[in-house]
């Protein structure tokens, strides 16, 4: 099999995407962080480095909780998506 990118993998999943963002980043804390563990921990590649800033896109989130646990600065404001939204596993 040819290596598949995370984006392509997420594209086969079923999501009910909310308009409301469920995870936030506290910019003021985030910009003081050097470790940037979120970039490597997130299995869905939701955290990306854009220039100096870490940006977050919630649509592909698999709701695993890794980002909040690895962020030792406490910059990730982690919540589950609202009931009925987010990832909806068809296999699991």
């Amino acid at each position, binding site marked *: *099999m040819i*290596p*598949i990118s*995370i984006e392509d*993998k*997420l594209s*086969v*999943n079923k999501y*009910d995407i909310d308009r409301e963002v469920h995870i936030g980043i506290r910019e003021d804390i985030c910009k003081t962080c050097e*470790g940037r*563990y979120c970039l*490597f*921990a997130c*299995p*869905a*590649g939701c955290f990306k480095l854009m220039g100096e800033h870490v940006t977050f896109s919630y649509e592909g989130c*698999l*709701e*695993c*909780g*890794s980002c*909040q*646990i*690895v962020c030792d600065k406490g910059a990730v404001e982690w919540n*589950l998506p*609202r*009931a*009925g939204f*987010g*990832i*909806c*596993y*068809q*296999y*699991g």
Partner: protein
Amino acid sequence: MKQRFDAVVVGAGPAGCACGYTLAKAGLEVLVVERGKFAGAKNMWGGVFYGPTLNQLFPQFWQEAPVERYVARHRFSLLTPDACLSAEFTTKKFTQPPYNGFTALRSKFDRWFASKVEQAGAIVATGLQVDDLLWDGNQITGIKAGGDELPASVVVACDGVNSVLAGKAGLRSKLQPRDMKLGIKEVIQLPRQLIEQRFNLVGDEGIAWEFIGSFSRGLPGGAFIYSNKESLSVGIAVQLSALTENQIKANDLLEEFKQHPAVADLLAEGKLVEYSAHLIPVSGMAMMPTLYTNGLLVAGDAAALILGTGLTLEGANFAVASGIAAAETVIRAKQAGDFSKKSLSYYPELLRESFVLKDLETFRKAPHFLENLRIYSLYPELACDLAEKVFTNDGTPRKKTWELFRQAMDGRVSLWQIARDLMQVKGAI
């Protein structure tokens, strides 16, 4: 819904369903709350579970539960970039009822389990998120969910590894990356016939195949292939802190694993149908939250009831058993009319009497042992090198195996170090 429930169970996974089912069977008023659109919508696992505990709840469950295959072959392999050294265990016993292990997919399996809970008389409310706990002084008296207050004599938190409720009740501290494995998995569709040919399976036989070695680049973790009826569950589980500290993404390791010569052909022509991820709390007793307080019990992954011994990583059985123990505690508390901490302290007693806390106690040192990095790179390399030397016929005079072993070890590890690691094996697993 202004009625007062005997129990509100939060989470319709194996722990919550086992708890809700046991409570409903005993005639209690039970509400099971699940945030997913259906039970299983938010859940994933590697894919193998062991039957005995579930068999107690539902004798011969495999006849009606949506299991994929029974595990007839247990295979374990060590990988280097080019080589693969395997051991396989089969026994006729595992191919006959009551079997031993099964592969299953959560979306179907949890839905089935939740339907059994409903049939037993509980209300299962899906698509409902718990916002908060209700308190009366220091007694938990129900939940707030979807804007409603739902009073109950007791709340059972079966809300998984990131348990929001155990956090809100003040029973656990912040989760640590060192205590977690990040599991990611692909479900790869393949025709039934191809699966059976490639893995040498007959009928409903399945394989549970675990790997350690080069693909994890020395990080503590392993990979797996489990056969379903018409798909394979292929994934890895790697220590979360090791990923971030080494700036490695789990998905890159999974791709590396899938490209391995011993693996790639088995997946050929497969079609990816799902990519999932989940955290596994692996530090056992060392990370266990307080299991109960006034009006609340914690079960399953929320209580970090996972057993990792190196050869197995098992949670579903522990979830089911802890859910049943929580239910038995609630039934007893209702008879006594007392849902205080003191009354609910029966719960850990039950867990200590069963395999749940006994196993975790027996393998208390295993999580630390499994952080020994030599397990994931050096020893697989040594074993494969030795095997290659033993099997290579290059026309030169042969050496004794012991000499080959010393040659393979040369400069990489001392006999003394191996002896010390073996002593650790003895103490830990």
